């Protein structure tokens, strides 16, 4: 059984919001109608987005980490939003595990958004229906697109490539390997929704420099026979 999902690498995301803009652009241009924008040029601009990037500061100054955290529907394997829907408008596709809302059936009761722990469903104030990330179901199977473009808009837009897309049930897929090898985790596991989307944690990226590397023979800055230069950055050994 296939379960398509996004895997988001928090170690790579730079918080540029390119995924947010491209998601909005793609989904506002689709057949389902535009994603509303209220007061776009006034005070309190707000509107419907399927994907948002939030920013958190972890730690206390000066030892802080700024973590950019993209958040969209996690296409849960046991989605809390689906069984509560009284109309069947919210459903999970058997063939690929994508959770969708049928905008023609939705009565706009908002009950599904109460049941989702993650706050990723947004009621569209113009169309009066519940909306959320579709995993770009209208892109990923579109045979009129070149094969390498059959990916979610947000994935294609991400400049550093922080967003991976694939089948998390296929152990050999790039996303499964990333989850396995880079400590992929899910959000709020205690909610028992078994999110399909995973996040890859921040990693400590340290560069350890040994003196023989700094003064190695092919170092272009090395002048043969010259004495040790105090202006060069200290090596690890000198620091310790």
């Amino acid at each position, binding site marked *: 059984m296939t379960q398509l999902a996004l895997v988001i690498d928090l170690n790579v995301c730079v918080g540029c919001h390119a995924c947010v803009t491209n998601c909005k652009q793609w989904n506002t241009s689709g057949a389902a109608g535009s994603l509303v924008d209220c007061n776009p040029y006034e005070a309190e601009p707000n509107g419907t987005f399927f994907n948002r990037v939030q920013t958190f500061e972890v730690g206390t100054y000066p030892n802080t980490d700024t973590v950019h955290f993209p958040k969209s529907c996690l296409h849960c394997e046991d989605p809390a939003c689906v069984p509560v829907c009284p109309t069947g408008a919210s459903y999970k596709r058997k063939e690929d595990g994508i959770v969708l809302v049928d905008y023609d059936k939705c009565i706009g009761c908002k009950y599904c958004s109460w049941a989702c722990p993650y706050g990723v469903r947004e009621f569209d104030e113009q169309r009066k229906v519940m909306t959320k990330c579709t995993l770009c179901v209208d892109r990923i199977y579109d045979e009129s697109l070149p094969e390498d473009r059959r990916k979610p808009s947000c994935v294609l837009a991400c400049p550093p490539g922080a967003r991976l897309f694939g089948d998390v049930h296929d152990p050999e897929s790039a996303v499964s390997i990333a989850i396995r090898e880079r400590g992929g985790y899910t*959000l709020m596991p205690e909610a028992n929704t078994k999110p399909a989307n995973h996040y890859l944690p921040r990693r400590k990226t340290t560069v350890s420099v040994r003196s023989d590397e700094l003064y190695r023979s092919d170092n272009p800055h090395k002048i043969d026979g010259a004495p040790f230069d105090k202006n060069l950055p200290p090596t690890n050994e000198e620091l310790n």
Partner: protein
Amino acid sequence: MRPAFSVLFLTTLIGAAQGLFIALFACELLAAESLPSSFFVGGSILVLIMSVLGGISSVFHLGHPERAWRAMTMWRTSWLAREGIALPAFMASVFAYGVSHWLGWGHTLAVGTFAIVIAITLFVCTAMIYGAIKVLKEWAHPMTIVNFIVLGCASGMTLAAAYASFTAPEIAGVLAQAAFWLTILGLITRGVSLWRNATLRPTSTLQTAIGIRHPHIVQKAQGSMGGSYNTREFFHGKSPAFVRGVLLTLILGAFVLPLVLVLMLPLLAFIIQYLGLLAERWYFFAEAQHPQNLYYQGKS
């Protein structure tokens, strides 16, 4: 959660309607001979009016009321769909009950028993709409069902006492007594859940929400500047003083004042208790802390 006013009216109106019907049927069981059929017909009309008003107000909650019929389709999984079936079924069976009294068809006990079963089913469905949302720990508890039933019965019984004081004064006193004790019971059961919710420890934290195990995390941006559906729907946006005021209003309005008044002035007691229950339902929403709020704690 932000209290949804149409839902406040819906649940308080149909709760009192169901309670009133249960009171009517109890009257028929215990004192049928001494009561004219007009007492039951009038009572059924009152139940129907309140249920219809509740139904109408619920429609205002929907983005697409014209599709409301669809809300009955997923009764296998959704308590909201089950309520969507149970409410019309309740109205229909109360209608049948009133008509059988009016036309003297007999079998009123059978029809009434059926309607009672539906009334209790409807209580369970309404309460389980909230009780089934596992992430809202304040709601996902059997006390939610207990409170919906007890508070509905208490307000319905107070209304029955008020109704009887005009139409059947000989039983008004007994009904007022019953309303008094049901309101005491409600004070206890709602008190238990108020206390439980005030001392609940949330399961989810900002750490589990974003998966970063650090004791000190501060949100700097939430992906919007002018708010979003998530900031509108899940926060009531009122000051702690206002919320405390509502708590006081609900304790006085739904319990203390009706207890003082019900034996002398049942109609006034019902009006005050109804308003008090609106405050109670407001508080029911406001006290529910949705875990999604963890993602919307700050912006800059």
